[in-house]
């Protein structure tokens, strides 16, 4: 059974059609990279999936459970249950500035998942260790570099034990020398078979880590396939043009 199935997804902002007719499937353990120029609708797909944007049409099924059927959402409580299977990492790493790293990780897990404090702390330490920031547990976000913030953000979303993580340009706001540490954590997650959808401009990462690449242009998926197909032998003129402009 597919982890995520999207059929004919449509989304407009006013008169502007941002997503025209998006269909794709994500299998468990897939790492899907969505590439394409700015404004092509990449981020909007993720935002629709996790219900930060309302869609205008289409069907979305997550882990066998329908979230949207032909443009109609299931009841809000069900939507919430389904989106809880997904975590999201934002470009602008939205850590809570008034909480230490520890509180950032523990508060949502304890509040939403009712995780007991002891367990939450144990999990928090484990995950900070995993992203290489165990020594920052009591630091406030203002004391962290961009790369460190993004790694904390990843750890925070892992606290909620998601089945899928959506990455919305996770390295775009970082200085070039800081992208490596974040990509390394993501690569590790991929090796652990976390299902991931990554909107990215990091072509090397997409090529190396993803097993599926979607090329978007103007609200449509113009081409999709394995990284070898997309990067090695792109069929569409637009894809070739885009890749040429990047490399």
């Amino acid at each position: 059974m597919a982890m995520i199935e999207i059929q004919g997804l449509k989304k407009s902002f006013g008169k502007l059609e941002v997503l025209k007719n998006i269909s794709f499937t994500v299998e468990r353990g897939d790492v899907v990279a969505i590439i394409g120029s700015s404004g092509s609708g990449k981020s909007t797909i993720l935002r629709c999936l996790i219900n930060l944007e309302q869609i205008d049409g289409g069907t979305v099924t997550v882990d066998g459970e329908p979230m949207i059927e032909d443009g109609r959402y299931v009841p809000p409580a069900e939507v919430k249950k389904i989106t809880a299977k997904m975590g999201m990492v934002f470009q602008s790493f939205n850590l809570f500035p008034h909480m230490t790293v520890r509180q950032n990780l523990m508060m949502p897990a304890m509040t939403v998942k009712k995780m007991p404090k002891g367990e939450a702390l144990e999990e928090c330490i484990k995950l900070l260790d995993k992203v290489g920031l165990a020594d920052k547990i009591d630091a406030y976000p203002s004391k962290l570099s961009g790369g460190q913030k993004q790694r904390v953000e990843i750890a925070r979303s892992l606290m909620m034990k998601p089945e899928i993580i959506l990455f919305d340009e996770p390295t775009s706001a970082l200085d070039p020398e800081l992208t490596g540490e974040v990509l390394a954590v993501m690569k590790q997650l991929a090796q652990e078979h976390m299902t991931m959808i990554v909107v990215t401009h990091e072509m090397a990462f997409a090529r190396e880590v993803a097993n599926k690449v979607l090329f978007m242009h103007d609200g449509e998926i113009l081409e999709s396939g394995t990284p070898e197909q997309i990067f090695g032998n792109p069929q569409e003129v637009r894809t070739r043009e885009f890749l040429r402009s990047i490399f």
Partner: protein
Amino acid sequence: MNLEHIWKLTQPLLMGAQTTILLFLIVILLSLPLGFVFTAMVRSRFRVVRLIGNAYINLMRGTPLLLQLFFIYFGLPILPVIGPYLKFGRFTAACIGFVLNYAAYFAEIYRGGLLAIDKGQYEACKVLGLSKAQTTLKVILPQMIRVALPSLANESITLVKDTSLLYAVSVPEVLHYAKLAVSREMTTVPFILAAIIYLLMVLLLTFFFRKVEKKFSFK
């Protein structure tokens, strides 16, 4: 003028200061939360509620506090029909006027604080599954307060000095006793003493807010 005389002049002023401090505390304790209510109103989904909230804030900020105090103490009791039920003691009337007035200012300060919060904070909360109430309580309010603190401090200092308006509804406070002593003894010393008392209260308040701001700096 010797020290003993100065102390004698200071004593009634300190008595007046008690009234000032009492009014200050009552107004702060009641208007800070009431301000939230008006902030919530002007941000409401419902147009009518927004309209009422905005009208209230504009009215309170757009007319002098002294006029409001006069209205509540002298004006309300002579209204037809309901007047007799709206007769308050001097101090109570003053408290009502101050609380209603300051709540409007605090509401605007909170609103400013909320505007400063990035929309990414709300999105992160939603993605993590926090409810609206949890988001407000655990994430938005603490950040809003940090942004609002300097303005809240400023407004509180204004409040200390505004308490001298009690003079207008004949509640004896610092200024009242100072003026009495000045006319009685033909010396400006009581005015200077009153100034020192206000200054000390404001400095204490400033020090207090510095401490709170430090606590809310999140570093």
